């Protein structure tokens, strides 16, 4: 394949997808690090996050970061999901999902046999992981709205079983995203071409 051919083939990740991915990464890092500082002001569980990995310096600063990055996170997230639906990318990339395939791919992945020849195809593990982390991020928004404005969102407040529980939901959704992120980074380290793909599109 000559370089001209490479230039003209359709990118694996369209440019809007790459841009929203990195904007989301920035927003999530800011929100998580400032969120840990906010958590530390009144921990739900019997531990605190080390100050060095938090953002904001003090509670007021952390809240400012958190509620600044939320706009980037929300607007970018809505843009990402909308374009995925309208462009047909969700159907093309994520459909179909089947549980048998998921277990099969997971088994292969764990034994190091899962092939990554064609990065434009997601395997079942990837499909599930990307959809679940999108779901977790959505739950983070919904529970976050309750923690932020419990009076103004009475329906969401009931859905989260009250203010205090919304904080717990918010925490676990964050924890899920962190586990995803860890695995995501390990996978990128194992298949470094995917990182290039997320920058260049191919």
């Amino acid at each position: 394949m000559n370089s001209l051919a490479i230039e003209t083939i359709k990118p694996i990740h369209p440019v809007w997808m790459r841009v929203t991915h990195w904007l989301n990464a920035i927003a999530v890092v800011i929100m998580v690090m400032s969120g840990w500082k906010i958590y530390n002001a009144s921990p739900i569980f019997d531990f605190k996050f080390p100050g060095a990995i938090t953002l904001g310096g003090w509670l007021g600063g952390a809240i400012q970061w958190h509620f600044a990055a939320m706009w980037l996170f929300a607007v970018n997230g809505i843009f990402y999901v909308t374009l995925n639906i309208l462009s047909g990318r969700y159907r093309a990339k994520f459909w179909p999902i089947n549980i048998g395939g998921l277990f099969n791919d997971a088994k292969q992945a764990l034994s190091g046999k899962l092939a990554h020849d064609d990065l434009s195809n997601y395997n079942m593990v990837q499909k599930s992981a990307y959809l679940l982390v999108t779901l977790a991020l959505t739950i983070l928004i919904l529970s976050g709205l309750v923690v932020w404005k419990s009076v103004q969102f009475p329906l969401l407040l009931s859905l989260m079983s009250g203010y205090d529980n919304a904080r717990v939901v918010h925490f676990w959704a964050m924890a899920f995203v962190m586990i995803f992120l860890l695995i995501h980074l390990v996978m990128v380290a194992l298949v470094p071409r995917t990182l290039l793909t997320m920058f260049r599109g191919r």
Partner: protein
Amino acid sequence: MMKKRIQLLDEQLIIKDASKALGMPGRRLFGKRALSLGALSMLSGCGLTDESSVEKMLMSISRFNDGAQALLFDPSQLAQTYPESMITTPFPFNAFYGEAEVPEIEEDYTLELSGMIANKDEWTLAALAALPQTSQITRHICVEGWSAIGKWGGVVFGDFLKRVGADTTAKFVGFRCADDYFTSIDMATALHPQTLLTLTFADQVLPAKYGYPMKLRMPTKLGYKNPKHITEIFVSNTNPGGYWEDQGYNWFGGS
């Protein structure tokens, strides 16, 4: 400038933490260090002196968020109320100082009114207690994240404002307190039906630690927006700011 403010804040918070015996007195200092670290790691493209411009950007987004919350605020949306059985006991003491520093109020206390109010006569506690009283059991949500349910009783604040001829088309209501605390709220929240000028807590005269002689109680706002030991109420079109708000807590502080 930020550093100075943070230092000042640290001292206050450390005193508060120590007096509450929460342990870990060094955590705010640790946090102070994290500020520079965090700000730097976020700003690889900017110079080291840009910390204040980041601060300015965050402050202006916080002002934008004031506006967003004002839009989101529904004047007729009521906060959830709870049965007596769900009241938190003991209700936590919370201030920017320790419980031993709670201000003592003199017996000849009167509430002063100023600014855009027609009748600026001072109010005695007896006169306030003679007004129609109501009570509610609501959740107090602290900016730190914890919450507690309590029962407050007193005068519907919107009724009081109308009674004294306050200009309710003005933008802000400000409060000065006996403990040198000060804060201010938007007029829409001042007129919310659950905003009470409270004289009682748990059906008893408001105890000193919960804000004697009076506390403005708003279940639609975070704890730091609910002033205690109020000595003066004024109406203004200029935003009077607040003790915590001027240091960086969001001014609207809605919940």
